Structures are given as C-alpha cells and as structure tokens.
C-alpha cells in the first residue's frame, strides 16, 4: 500500500495524480517558495496602516515586496486565478479581497469564471458537482 503521504518530487507519480485534478492548485513546497512574497504582501494587509498605504499607491506599495513583475501585475489586475497560479494561496489572497471589500464567494466566482450571483446560485443549487470534476481525463 502506498504511504498516506508520499514525498513529492518531479519523479513522483503522485504529482501526475494531483495534476490530473482539474482547476486545483496544490499549495505545495514549489508554490510556497514561488509565492512567499506575494503571500506576505497579502498578509501585510491585515494592518490598517498598510491597507491605507496600499490604497494610496498600489504600485509603490507592491515595490516593498520582492515579487516578480508577473505577480505584481496579477495583483494590480486583480486577476485572482493568475495569483493562485503564481504561488498565492487563497487564505492570503482573501486578505486582498477583504481590502477590496470582496467576499470569498466573489473570489471563488471570479476564479471559476462566474459572476458573484451566478456562483451563489450554483451553490444554492447544490454546488459544483463532483461528477465530471474528478479528473482532467474524465472531462475530455
């Protein structure tokens, strides 16, 4: 039997199994390393004086953090899905969302291509079904 958690590496077949789950970005060691500064930027927004400084000049504030140009642009564009792809974690980007007055539902809708109302209606109707969403191969 496979261990409950196998260490992950490029050579690990478990990587492929995770990659096969559609629309899901595992916050593993690679994403954590890649996204450390963008996540710590989000974390800084827990303080009011930082939120004020960010709102006053977003680009200048972002320059305080050694993020990549792509990460900065994703933040400026509020491209929530791109932030995740570039190593941000949802519990961190939600702090940027809170700064903007946006709820988890708004962010979830934005990442899955729905308006907040469409997303809310989907959830009331029972959520996104598991059938058809387990694996990329199943979706083809």
């Amino acid at each position: 039997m496979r261990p409950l958690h196998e260490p992950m590496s490029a050579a690990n077949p478990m990587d492929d199994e995770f990659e096969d789950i559609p629309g899901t970005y595992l916050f593993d060691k690679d994403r954590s390393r890649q996204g450390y500064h963008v996540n710590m930027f989000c974390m800084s927004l827990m303080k009011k004086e930082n939120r004020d400084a960010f709102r006053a000049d977003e680009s200048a504030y972002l320059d305080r953090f050694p993020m990549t140009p792509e990460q900065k642009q994703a933040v400026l564009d509020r491209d929530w899905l791109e932030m995740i792809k570039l190593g941000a974690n949802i519990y961190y980007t939600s702090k940027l969302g809170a700064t903007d007055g946006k709820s988890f539902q708004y962010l979830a809708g934005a990442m899955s291509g729905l308006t907040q109302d469409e997303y809310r209606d989907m959830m009331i109707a029972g959520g996104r079904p598991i059938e058809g969403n387990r694996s990329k191969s199943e979706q083809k």
Partner: protein
Amino acid sequence: MARIVGGLATSHVPAIGVAVDQGLTQEPYWKPLFDGYVPAQQWLKETDPDVIILVYNDHATAFSLELIPTFAIGVADEFPPADEGWGPRQVPVVKGHSELAWHLSEYLILHEFDMTMVNKMYVDHGLTVPLSITCGTPDEWPCQVIPIAVNVVQYPPPTGKRCFDLGRSIRDAVESFEEDLKVVVYGTGGMSHQLHGERAGLLNPEWDKRFLDDLTADPDRLTRIPFLEYVRETGAEGIEMVMWLIMRGALPEHAKEVYRHYHIPASNTAAGLIILEPES
C-alpha cells in the same frame, strides 16, 4: 480525574460567523442551517463541560508562512479574537485553561507528539465560529477553551492516522489530569469545499455522508483516507476534515452518534455537524 464526556465536529465557515454577528440567522438563506444548530446548543448546555479542547486551523492569522507549526497548543489564560482584515469579531475573549494545556503539552510531547506551545495567540474564525455555532451569543463563553491549531494550509498537513493517534493521546493525557474536569473535544473545519481555482464551489454530499457515518461505523477506514482522495473528492480545502479525526481519536473505540446536521450551502461549503458520546 478529568474525563472526556463527548466530541463534537462542525464546519467553521467564516460566513456563518458573519451571519451571527450581523443578526442574519433567521433570514431564509441561513435559517435552515441555524435551526439545525439548536439541538447542538442544547446538548452543550446539558453536557456542561468545564473545558473544550478545540481543534481548528489558523487561516493565515496568528501564523503565516513565516512560521508553520503542524500542531500548536494554546497554553495561555486567554486568547483574543483576531482582526482578520475587517476588525475583530465582537465575541467574548476566549479563556484558556493554562494548567490543563501545559499538562497536555508535557504529556503529548513525552508520548512523541511534538507540540508547539503558544502563549500569545489571536484566534480567528476557525475557533470562534464553532463557539458561536454551539453557544450562540453569550456575554462570556460558557467554559474554558484550549485551542489546538493544526496546519492544513501548507502541504503536507498531518495524515488522518496521525491526527487520530493524537486524539487518542489527548484522551490519555486528559485522563491523567488529577482535577475532576468534564472535557469536550471539538474537531472543526470541512466538510467538502474548494475555495480556489476553476473548480471552486465543489461539493460532494455523498462522500461527506459516508464520512459522517463512518465516524462511528468504521473510523479505521477514515484514518486510511489519503490526502489525494480528500483533495479529489471533497475539494482542496476539504482536507480540514482530518481535524475531525483528532476529535474521534479522543473518544473511546466505541462511540455513539447522538446528533447530526448537514446543510448545503453555507457560502462555499457543505456544512456538517456531528456529536458523539462514549458508548456506555
């Protein structure tokens, strides 16, 4: 001797806290969920514990990527509600039980669970929402609370088996504490939900129901669920359910279900609640 008289598991969705704080619990969207919490509040009142050991996860509040403890235990006398970006929830300060918490820390570490002890810790919705769900809106929480924070944000979280075994050791630790205390253990988080990516909004009620059933019917199966299955079947954030297994491990092998409630949706999440008691 202290003893564990019950276990309770519940989702800890932040929007549930918002609904409580803004007085929305009787609105059509929320009423069916909150109606199902009434019997749990009644159970807690009747059980009247001295201490709740509350297992939850911090959501980048007290901890961040700067410091990622796998298992952290709050040993202080009190834990203030955290400001999660929109001001702290206006709920009572959480009073700890420092003496029992230090006893747990010593016992657990000497039994090979290497806890991180925390004296200064703000507690976020992961801890305060389960208290709101089960206690309503009192001026003071009805008992002392020992927070145990589990990392489920950064891969890898602890395995379900490890969590279950930690629960067993918590039971032994409680039973080796001399003072006569009634203790209830909470496991929180879940159930199925995914908050990020194109697959956000995933729910899996069938999987959740089987998980609820097997907390009493076959907990051993639950300890063998691999991380991959949680992610694939319950959504990336459904992994929080490993924290329910700490609660389950803290109860004896034979436990009975005394109440359950399951409702879709609470914002992004399938909200579940279950209460277990030792089989007498």
